[in-house]
């Protein structure tokens, strides 16, 4: 079903792994416009297709991957996509958002989203390529790390993959896409529970644009702002997110020793500045991002790895009581390969260290000790010994060993790397965040308290609730649109702090103004969408969305989309039995001042929550009011809201959680057995599965005639290089269009394989099934020197060979190109060319 709005591809894929059925999920034009795709659309679909009360690791749960309207459009930082599912840690809503390439490639394949339901009966992977969707056997990939898995599925498509942690249902398992990660909420465990090892996407579609000139102008203006603002043009590109280490340590907001402090001595050893001076080898960026915050390559122990982000550095460094940047990098690398969220892993490890030091948990984990950390991460991924307990996260660890008052989590999910007691608004964000403690879902008010240019008093509760609501709505709108939230850091006017000194009189005025946020921002959500019929240069997203899509995306429309997304997620939680009693923090953060000389260095949650609910238009028990749902066009959710008001769903939720815990051990044992079985037969499985797939492909290829579509040909010559025929059956010269010479073509399909999916310039038309022409090739055993050269050169993987064994040509797969014969050294001449009868 297409949509009348540009920017979207108009189709959502719906794959049921239990039945193997692939269909399309309908989304109305109104929903596309009201939600803008991404996080909002994902939450809405999830709400509609997943019934309340299910086990997140059961086939009833669904994974909803969605790209936003801007994803893949070329707008700045617009590579973001989202996955929504039921949260393995909290039992409420889960959402994870990431840059990378998958969202873009999904759109190039022709889809705005992918829904995965059910559970396969053996490990599988899904291939999405230009409208075609196939479910493949992945038994040979099961048990492999995320990098090997991705490499095994090709480099010209975008791949999502889980590692051993996802397979073993670790509650904070992640999903990798290249080096970028859908990290939080245990989304990797949901994928593992479905026996879905990987998904690939690729295609040659283009994102339709409504007003090409207007969009190009909007993108150019927006890029200019990002390239000239100190946050996005200097700090993030120069030092990455790790530039936050020194600032957070100085403002006492760096998670340290299980959040017992906000600063660590020698924090600079972990900083982005130190990384740049010592181990950094290459910076990088997601697609279409001018900020370039990624530390693509660092060198540790003579090996090239991905540079760790701030959250990883904070939680796996200072939070564990050490400042060894090389160790943090090794841990980050291990987490990526195993498929583990570094935030929840770091939070849980820090908590386990404090439990151990207090004698409440028997383990050799200690603050400052680093020699056992890599082994512990491995144990978590494979659920071995103590690792099995740690794999459950800090809340469940506290339920078993005590320490709930200092477990750094809310709703069951661990804090990010910011200690909230010296940025109390940020603490409110942790408590109310829909997916469990999260800095982004919580509104990132710390930007106004400790990190940004002009800040407000970090310890006052005044103004924080309204600011939190405003930020949450804006971030949700940005995330829904498929854009990176780093684009919002440039909203403070360039050079404002040069005109208004933060520590002068004007700085004090700014503080007072921000404290009055309730009056400035508290009602913005309640204004009708036409009340803000403007594009504000400081929030350039609206202009880009309008010109790209044709949606009249005013600032009012944009913030309303964010509020709608946030409310849908809250309603998902309400339907699961959550209410205000779950918007809490452990008592360390609300009762114990972080600094003895500063009694206000604690989160005054009780003072902020009532105002937060009021600004949100929720009732004092934390449930949205009916008029809010009506205002946001969410009337279908009214019945669920009324049911939640009538019945206390909270107790049944907690009981369900208990029973899920008991069921999990059996599930994990099953997975372990499956992995062990597949491990033993991996080589033969790979050969069998590989041959089956190659045979399928040969069968298809033999029914096809190949031609170059000149409208799509990029003149790169990859098809020419791949053509095995001599002389070549592809005519091409540098800078010129390629052409397939039908009289020479042997229909091997290798040109099609070589053409990048995003171009897909080789067209296939169905023809009478034909055997590939040309002679048959066979190895002459008595002449074969078992060197493997033919095996190495065969472009169709049609030759079986192992060291010191004879090569054997599989005639059913052979494309008759003769390369094996050509490559076999003349002195042996071990390949016979036979004319077929």
């Amino acid at each position, binding site marked *: 079903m297409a949509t009348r709005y540009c920017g979207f591809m108009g189709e959502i894929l719906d794959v049921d792994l239990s039945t193997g059925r692939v269909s399309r999920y309908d989304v109305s034009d109104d929903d596309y416009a009201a939600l803008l795709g991404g996080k909002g659309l994902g939450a809405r679909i999830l709400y509609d297709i997943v019934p309340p009360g299910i086990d997140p690791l059961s086939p009833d749960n669904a994974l909803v991957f969605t790209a936003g309207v801007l994803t893949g459009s070329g707008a700045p930082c617009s590579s973001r996509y989202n996955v929504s599912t039921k949260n393995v840690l909290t039992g409420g809503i889960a959402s994870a958002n990431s840059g990378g390439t998958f969202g873009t490639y999904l759109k190039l394949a022709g889809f705005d989203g992918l829904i995965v339901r059910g559970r396969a009966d053996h490990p599988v992977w899904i291939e999405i390529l230009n409208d075609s969707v196939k479910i493949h056997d992945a038994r040979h990939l099961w048990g492999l790390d995320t990098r090997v898995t991705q490499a095994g599925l090709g480099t010209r498509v975008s791949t999502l993959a889980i590692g051993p942690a996802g397979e073993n249902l670790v509650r904070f398992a992640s999903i990798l896409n290249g080096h970028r990660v859908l990290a939080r909420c245990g989304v990797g465990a949901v994928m593992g529970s479905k026996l879905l090892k990987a998904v690939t996407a690729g295609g040659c579609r283009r994102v339709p644009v409504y007003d090409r000139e207007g969009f190009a102008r909007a993108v150019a203006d927006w890029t200019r702002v990002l390239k000239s603002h*100190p*946050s996005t043009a*200097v*700090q*993030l590109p*120069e*030092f990455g*997110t790790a*530039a*936050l280490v*020194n*600032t957070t*340590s*100085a*403002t*006492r907001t760096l998670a340290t020793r299980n959040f017992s402090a*906000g*600063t660590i001595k020698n924090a*600079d050893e972990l*900083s982005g*500045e130190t990384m740049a001076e010592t181990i950094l080898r290459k910076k990088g960026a997601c697609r279409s991002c001018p900020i370039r915050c990624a530390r693509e390559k660092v060198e540790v122990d003579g090996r090239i790895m991905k540079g760790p*982000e*701030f*959250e990883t550095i904070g939680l796996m460094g200072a939070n564990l009581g050490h400042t060894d940047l090389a160790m943090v990098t090794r841990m980050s690398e291990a987490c990526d390969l195993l498929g583990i969220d570094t935030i929840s892993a770091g939070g849980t490890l820090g908590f386990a260290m404090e439990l151990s030091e207090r004698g409440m948990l028997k383990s050799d984990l200690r603050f400052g000790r680093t020699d056992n950390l890599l082994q512990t991460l491995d144990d978590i991924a494979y659920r071995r010994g103590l690792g099995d307990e740690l794999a459950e996260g800090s809340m469940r660890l506290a339920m078993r060993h005590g320490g709930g008052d200092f477990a750094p989590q809310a709703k069951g999910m661990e804090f990010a790397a910011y200690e909230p007691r*010296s940025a109390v608004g940020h603490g409110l964000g942790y408590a109310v965040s829909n997916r469990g403690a999260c*800095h*982004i879902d919580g509104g*990132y008010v710390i*930007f106004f308290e400790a*990190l*940004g*240019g002009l*800040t407000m*008093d*970090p310890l006052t509760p005044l103004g924080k609730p309204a600011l939190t609501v405003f930020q949450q709505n804006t971030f949700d709108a940005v995330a829904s649109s498929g854009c990176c*939230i*780093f684009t*919002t*850091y440039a909203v*403070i006017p360039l050079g404002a*702090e*040069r005109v208004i*000194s*933060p*520590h*002068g009189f004007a*700085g*004090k005025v700014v*503080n007072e103004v921000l404290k009055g946020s309730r009056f400035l921002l508290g009602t913005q959500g309640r204004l009708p969408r036409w009340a803000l019929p403007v594009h504000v240069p400081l929030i350039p997203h609206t202009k880009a969305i309008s010109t790209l899509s044709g949606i009249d995306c005013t600032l009012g429309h944009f913030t309303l989309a964010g509020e709608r997304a946030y409310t849908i997620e809250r309603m998902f939680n309400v339907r699961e039995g959550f209410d205000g009693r779950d918007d809490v923090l452990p008592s360390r953060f609300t009762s114990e001042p972080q*600094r003895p000389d*500063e009694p206000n*260095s604690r989160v005054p949650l009780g003072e902020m929550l009532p105002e937060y609910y009021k600004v949100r238009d929720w009732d004092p028990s934390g449930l949205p009011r009916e008029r809010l749902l009506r205002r946001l066009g969410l009337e279908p959710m009214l019945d669920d809201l009324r049911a939640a008001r009538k019945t206390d769903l909270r107790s049944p939720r907690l009981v369900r959680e208990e029973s899920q815990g008991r069921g999990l051990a059996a599930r994990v044992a099953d997975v372990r057995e499956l992995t062990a079985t597949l491990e033993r037969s991996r080589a033969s499985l790979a050969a069998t599965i590989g041959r089956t797939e190659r045979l399928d492909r040969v069968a298809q290829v033999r029914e096809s005639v190949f031609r170059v579509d000149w409208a799509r040909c990029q003149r790169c010559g990859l098809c020419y290089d791949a053509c095995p025929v001599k002389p070549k059956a592809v005519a091409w010269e540098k800078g010129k269009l390629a052409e397939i010479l039908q009289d020479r073509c042997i229909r091997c399909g290798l040109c099609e394989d070589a053409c990048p999916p995003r171009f897909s310039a080789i067209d296939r038309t169905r023809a009478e099934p034909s055997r590939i022409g040309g002679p048959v090739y066979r190895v002459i055993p008595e002449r074969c020197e078992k060197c493997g050269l033919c095996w190495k050169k065969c472009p169709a993987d049609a030759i079986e060979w192992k060291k010191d064994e004879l090569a054997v040509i599989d005639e059913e797969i052979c494309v008759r190109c003769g390369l094996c014969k050509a490559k076999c050294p003349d002195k042996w001449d071990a390949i016979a060319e036979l004319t077929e009868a």
Partner: protein
Amino acid sequence: MVEVTLVGPMAEAAGTRKTEAEAATVGELIEALTARYGALFKQRARGSRIVLNGTPIQFKKGHKTALADGDEVAFLVPIGGG
């Protein structure tokens, strides 16, 4: 002696990220560091956020805030992350 942390453009102006200085107030500290590192330091210090032992100085006595031995002062610049 006061421990000083410098971030981003402030560190660039001074050529170091960590230093120490003797000063009775924040204002005096800026003067002392300006004398050491030049006028660019003072110019950039105006737009930087100054934090004393974790608390921004505008919530104390601004440039008149008194400093004691062992205090930690940081000159910060805007940065956001995620």
